[in-house]
């Protein structure tokens, strides 16, 4: 598995800091994630997948934060966190299958691309409504604390989500119950077309934590090690019973909001170009080079492996069966009600008639 090197278990460097080996693993994951992004934007243009929400520009934050977690921690993501899933050991194939919504998709083709759920990796089901995962992460954190489990919950959300009802309720509950929750706000400067400074007038997003009685910190989201360290500290605080932390990771959304978006309508290319200078993948590449941890040959190999892994996974996903039509009626409840049985029979009949010549 191309991603297993980045698996989040304490490395030889102990709980804090990242060894050279793990840094290279992180880089490998970031390259895979970036390549996946590019490939998926193309797949969507070709009509092979229905939608895609890219994360380019946010890889250092995603991978750095995920590396700071332990396997028993719980992740409550939004829709740009597939790189977190990769770090947690979710097979690339499972991610690609979700994007295609095929019969192998663990979500059974129920959700739009990018709305993942991976139970085994404690990567909770994402949804589109902005912010709703935040209170849920707090609830899981309170539950863990009541059970005296030495874990943290982490939730990812954007700058726009700080305006949501759940941000307010979630952070307030976390403060009141000292929930072991890490709030990871990826401030990528934009909420679709709304710039950060029109989203809210607080000087930083991090400082909003003070309104709930716990600390907020700002971190350079392009700096993998800084993000890792910040999340590591927040996690330690959480597990030690010292309560929640809000981390504002300052990044930039290099791509469009999603494949439905045309960012040229609302932001100047110059801003994007400037942000490209801070590209987190290039930055880590440079750092690894300087540290003698990666040379061009190794880098080329990593890139090639990513491409190959993706090509294989995509081919596999496209060859997979489509979801079974009558599975529409499953999972509404633990067991189908008589009414769902009746509707299922109704649909079965229509499907049968539609098949008749």
């Amino acid at each position: 598995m191309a991603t297993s090197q980045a698996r989040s278990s304490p490395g030889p460097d102990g709980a804090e800091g990242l060894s050279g080996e793990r840094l290279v693993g992180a880089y490998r994951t970031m390259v895979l994630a970036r390549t996946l992004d590019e490939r998926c934007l193309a797949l969507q243009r070709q009509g092979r997948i229905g939608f895609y929400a890219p994360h380019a520009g946010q890889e250092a934050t995603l991978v750095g934060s995920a590396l700071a977690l332990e396997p028993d921690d719980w992740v409550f993501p939004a829709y740009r966190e597939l790189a977190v899933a990769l770090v947690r050991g979710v097979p690339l194939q499972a991610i690609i299958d979700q994007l295609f919504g095929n019969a192998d998709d663990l979500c059974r083709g129920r959700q739009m691309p990018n709305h993942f759920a991976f139970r085994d990796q404690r990567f909770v089901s994402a949804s589109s409504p902005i912010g709703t995962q935040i209170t849920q992460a707090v609830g899981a954190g309170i539950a863990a604390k009541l059970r005296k489990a030495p874990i943290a919950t982490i939730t990812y959300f954007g700058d726009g989500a700080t305006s949501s009802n759940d941000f307010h309720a979630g952070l307030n509950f976390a403060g009141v119950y000292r929930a072991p929750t890490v709030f990871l706000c990826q401030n990528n400067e934009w909420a679709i077309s709304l710039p950060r400074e029109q989203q809210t007038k607080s000087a930083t997003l991090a400082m909003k934590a003070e309104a709930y009685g716990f600390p907020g910190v700002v971190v350079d989201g392009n700096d993998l090690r800084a993000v890792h360290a910040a999340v590591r500290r927040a996690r330690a605080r959480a597990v030690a019973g010292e309560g929640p932390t809000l981390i504002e990771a300052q990044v930039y959304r290099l791509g469009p909001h999603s494949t439905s978006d045309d960012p040229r309508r609302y932001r100047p290319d110059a801003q994007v170009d400037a942000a490209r200078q801070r590209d987190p993948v290039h930055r880590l590449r440079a750092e690894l080079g300087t540290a003698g941890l990666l040379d061009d040959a190794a880098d080329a190999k990593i890139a090639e492996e990513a491409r190959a892994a993706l090509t294989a996974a995509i081919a596999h996903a496209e060859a997979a069966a489509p979801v079974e039509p009558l599975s529409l009626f499953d999972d509404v409840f633990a067991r189908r009600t008589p009414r769902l049985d009746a509707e299922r029979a109704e649909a079965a009949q229509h499907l049968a008639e539609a098949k008749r010549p």
Partner: protein
Amino acid sequence: MSELTLVQAVNRGLAEAMRADPDVLVLGEDVGVNGGVFRATDGLLKEFGADRVLDTPLSETGIVGSAIGMALYGLKPVAEIQFLDFIYPAFDQIVSELAKMRYRSGGQYPCHVVVRAPYGGGIKGGLYHSQSTEAYFCHTAGLKVVVPSTPADAKGLLLSAIADEDPVIFLEPKRIYRSVTGEVPEGATRVPFGQARSVRSGTDVSLFAYGAMIPVVTEAATALEAEGISAEVLDLRTLVPLDEEAVLRSVGRTGRAVVVHEAARFCGFGAELSALLAEKAFYSLKAPIARVTGYDTPFPYALENVYLPSVERVVAAARETVRAS
């Protein structure tokens, strides 16, 4: 067996469920120290402690959102919303998250939360302490919706709700919290979902109702008897899943139906019952299906007795239905 009021039966149900299963916990506004504004959670804090009875900040968004997180983690939260009228700050969490979690995750993340809320009028509560908006929840795929009308059902259905694997909206008829008393079995005697309760049988007309309308409809049936009209009364108990068979069977016998609820008529739950009958009992029907409901106005304060279905209105509708054919 002990003789309890409906709200005492709820309290008993909660206490027994918490004793039987350490994963069950209660959260909401004023549920701890104060024992709930209706005393439904009285004594729970003392017996189970602040780890299992959480007095929350004033945020229904937070209550239901965090209850979902607790359920995902593996606990069995029972969230109290102080009045159904105040559930709307949590509506996004309920309809977008709670109802769809199992489905959207392909069954990976079941999400079992019980949301309890007192509902309904008749307590001089005006617009915001009186509403019956069960139809919103019934129309939301993925939620079960329960409305008990007796103390025994209140406890038995609550135990089923807490034991269920799916999210349950549990609506308590606060108007009869204390006015109705009855024998309640001790121990884990669950009342299963999806089974209507026959309150009385009859041959001329079927009266369908639930919750606080059951005493009204029952009294109407008695009055109708005096007029020589034999009315059957069915307490639906669980609106989702609905006991369609019992409804169809009843109209199969009587050929006439009157649907009664407090909620506004337009797109109310009664519409679904009418539609069900117009679809599946068409050939049994001898008369138009009548609805006796709240009117299509907000819930009033001074005029709640004009608004709410009364014994007289139910009797008049049943009489007309019987006379029509």
